[in-house]
């Protein structure tokens, strides 16, 4: 049997005296889409911030593809193929689409030690391709992020994750503030992740969204996992009873 793609073992996290995660253990199989649900303060955000390298666990271990790893920064997480789309902290509104796509990973035409001049032509070219690849229709990669709708911004965030070949895509409340049509598009994309060889973790408040687009539902409450079932074996009623 193949090892889980990502495996979290007995993770603990304290914040200023608050025990935010109390020994969370979770295995995610390759090409599985897991929906993570729970109230505010249940520990969902803390868990995904640990997976994406923004926070460090105080105790416990993380394995990627069976290897024990230390995800010490977002850069390290990206190196393992973990890309994260935060509900509103994914994009810089004052910058262009092309610049946003490549923040921290700019193609350089002249550089020493990772610092140098941006290859603007290549960045524009790759930006156009990345946007087209996720079937997004935008006028120009030079447009400012501030001029896009919420759905289009989410599309750019998705384009970035796919362009950098993410193996594990974490989406934190990606449908917040989106129109019905845009929400359907994002959920359709999540549904299609396994077909593209990508494993997904979807954080959402909306149980219907999770049941529509995920293979498995995991519910958290007060820093612990309290429910874990395949979508086919459960219902909105059962999950909401637990919460």
């Amino acid at each position, binding site marked *: 049997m193949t090892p889980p793609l990502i495996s979290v073992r007995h993770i603990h996290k304290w914040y200023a005296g608050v025990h935010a995660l109390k020994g969370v253990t979770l295995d995610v199989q390759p090409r599985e889409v897991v929906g993570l649900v729970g109230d505010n303060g249940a520990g969902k955000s803390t868990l995904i911030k640990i997976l994406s390298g923004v926070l460090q666990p105080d105790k416990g271990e993380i394995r990627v593809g069976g290897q024990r790893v230390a995800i010490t920064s977002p850069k390290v997480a990206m190196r393992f193929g973990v890309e994260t789309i935060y509900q509103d902290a994914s994009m810089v509104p004052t910058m262009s689409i092309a610049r946003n796509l490549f923040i921290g990973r700019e193609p350089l035409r002249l550089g020493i030690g990772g*610092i140098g*001049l941006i290859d603007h032509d290549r960045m524009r070219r790759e930006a156009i391709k990345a946007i087209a690849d996720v079937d997004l229709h935008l006028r120009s990669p030079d447009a400012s992020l501030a*001029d896009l709708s919420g759905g289009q911004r989410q599309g750019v965030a998705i384009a970035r994750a796919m362009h950098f070949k993410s193996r594990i895509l974490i989406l934190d409340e990606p449908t917040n503030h989106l129109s019905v049509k845009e929400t359907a598009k994002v959920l359709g994309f999540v549904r299609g992740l396994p077909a593209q060889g990508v494993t997904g973790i979807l954080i959402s408040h909306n149980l219907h969204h999770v049941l529509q687009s995920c293979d498995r539902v995991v519910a958290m409450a007060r820093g612990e996992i309290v429910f874990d079932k395949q979508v086919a074996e459960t219902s909105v009623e059962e999950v909401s009873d637990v919460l």
Partner: protein
Amino acid sequence: MRNLFRIYLEKPELAGVALLVVLAALFEARSGGAFLSGDNLRGILGLLPEVGLVSIGVTVLMICGEFDLSVGSTFALTPMATSLLIIAGVPTRAAILLGLLLAAAIGFANGFITLTFAIPSFIATLGMLFIVRSLTVVISGGFPPLLPDDLATGEFTQFVGPGGLFRTSFIWFLAIAFAASALIANSNVGNWIKATGGHLEAAEAMGVPVRRVKLFCFMLCSVMAGFGGIIQVFRLHSPLPSIGDGLELQAVAAAVIGGTALSGGVGTVLGAVVGALLIRVIDNGLVMTQVDANWFKFAVGALTIFAVVSNTWLRRTARRIKVAG
């Protein structure tokens, strides 16, 4: 009209350039042709590098989302330290370098205090404004030290160019402005600076080393201020402990007039240069048209408010037109 708006959206600092042309024409007409004379231009261009360098540094720091109120004091302490070293017998270039290192240390302290204790840079650098000014007076001994008469400062102050139109300091200024512009607009570090100031959490989540980026900007800002101060002291040939007083706010005004957003993430080096030039032109133009010089601060204040109000209005209107079209 729509084209004008589009140009404005892409290059907002051009509005400042347009204003510059209008003001120059006005002063030229009112002064009976004296404003654009070689002698007068020499005066404007000779002073520009000093406040211009400070404005560039402050602009870069504002783009990354922080402030520095201590630049006026650093502008005074750096040349004071350099002068004392020269008087003590240290070679001029080494003394300049040591002075700039001291400036970098002030910038590091500003950044370190701001980031480590998570306090607003406004407060950290306000404290540093007083501390550094006090240090300047203390090390000067309360009386401006005398620079040697034969000190070679030609590298920074000598008149060169056609008809001796500008000083060597202007060449330094241009070179530094080009380098800073390339840093902000064309380098990956510039992209990180904009991202850090535009949306800190997003930049962090994308792996930008935001703490190091900010520290770098704080240090760059202080070094620019220190270098501006050295140029001024070499021009005046006297390290007065009071120079640069009030410069911190003039630099913020120049940045804002040039289109830099107070909220971070937005701004250009060209804008900072245009803003600094506008302030110099107003200062000089008022004198040349025989307006009471005490109106200078009034004019800079009015221009600052006008620039931000009109920028906000233009941006909103241009956007509406773009969305409608």
